[in-house]
């Protein structure tokens, strides 16, 4: 091509232009052409880029949509799969807990029990237990037999039997005597207390007037010594108080009667009565009456 331009210019100019000028023209021509080509190429490239980018975006979007849809399907499928598996696992473990664990527990308990039985068989053999039980029963029976035979043997001998019977008889008699003696002691103690009480009462009332003595004997005649010691003074004070009240009442009545009774007769009666009556209690109020 470049040769053609040089050739064309050579032919056209018929060696007017030097070789250098032709080369410069050729270079300028090529540079200009190259610039234009470059511009066109850039333009084409940019257009191609835009086109490709649009297409790529569309493609990416389409791929994304496709992938999203596929991924959604995959996720839902995985979810379903996993949830189904998890349900199965839950059911299996629930069953294991409820059934298998129960059966395992039962088996374990039976195994432990069997092991303990075997251990007991080894440590304490059944024969030994049987022997021990038999020995224990034999010992008990032997002790019972010994007791029975000892008593029977003792009673079986004539002399011992008589001695035993005599001893029993003596014990019975002694028991009866003891009971009767206790009864007598009780009676004697009662009589003694009664006598002591009577003596004490007599000593205390020896110097008292007759009416007081009767009163004290009436109230305390059947009491014991402790009661008499404790309540004698109170009873005496009670009698004195009652007597004073009685005299006071008689005095009041006598005072009322003096208004209607002849004084001379009263004086005669009062003069006669003190001589015939020794009772201190009546002397008291009669002396009071004599004043009227």
């Amino acid at each position, binding site marked *: 091509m470049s040769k053609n331009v040089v050739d064309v210019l050579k032919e056209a100019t018929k060696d007017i232009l030097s070789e250098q000028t032709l080369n410069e023209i050729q270079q300028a021509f090529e540079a200009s052409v190259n610039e234009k080509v470059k511009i066109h190429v850039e333009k084409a490239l940019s257009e191609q880029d835009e086109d490709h980018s649009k297409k790529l975006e569309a493609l990416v979007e389409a791929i994304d949509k496709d992938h999203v849809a596929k991924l959604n399907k995959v996720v839902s499928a995985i979810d379903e799969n996993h949830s189904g598996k998890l349900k199965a696992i839950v059911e299996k473990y629930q069953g294991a807990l409820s059934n298998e664990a129960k059966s395992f*527990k039962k088996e*374990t*308990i*039976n195994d*432990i*029990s069997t092991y*303990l*039985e075997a251990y*007991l068989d080894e440590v*304490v053999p*059944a024969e030994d*237990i*049987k022997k*021990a*039980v*038999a020995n224990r*029963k034999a010992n008990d029976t032997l002790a019972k037999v010994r007791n029975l035979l000892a008593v029977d043997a003792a009673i079986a001998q004539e002399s011992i039997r008589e001695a035993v019977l005599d001893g029993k008889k003596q014990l019975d008699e002694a028991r009866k005597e003891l009971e009767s003696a206790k009864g007598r002691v009780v009676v004697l103690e009662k009589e003694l207390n009664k006598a002591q009480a009577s003596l004490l009462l007599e000593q205390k009332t020896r110097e008292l007037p007759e009416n007081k003595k009767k009163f004290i004997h009436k109230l305390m005649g059947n009491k014991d010594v402790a009661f008499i010691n404790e309540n004698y003074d109170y009873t005496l004070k009670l009698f004195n108080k009652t007597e004073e009240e009685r005299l006071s009442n008689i005095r009041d009545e006598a005072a009322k009667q003096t208004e209607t009774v002849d004084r001379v007769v009263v004086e005669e009666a009062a003069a006669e009565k003190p001589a015939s009556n020794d009772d201190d209690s009546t002397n008291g109020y009669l002396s009071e009456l004599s004043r009227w």
Partner: protein
Amino acid sequence: MDNKQKALITNFLKCLTEKDYSNAKKTLQQVMDIKLQNRIQNAVKDLKK
């Protein structure tokens, strides 16, 4: 094996899982006592026969 022994062994296992070895030992001793007592009772019954 009666229910009492089962309950005691269950309690023994529970004590073991809770690492309560003192009570586990007591429970196991109770089971052993019951088993030994049963054996003695059986021996007494056999002797009475």
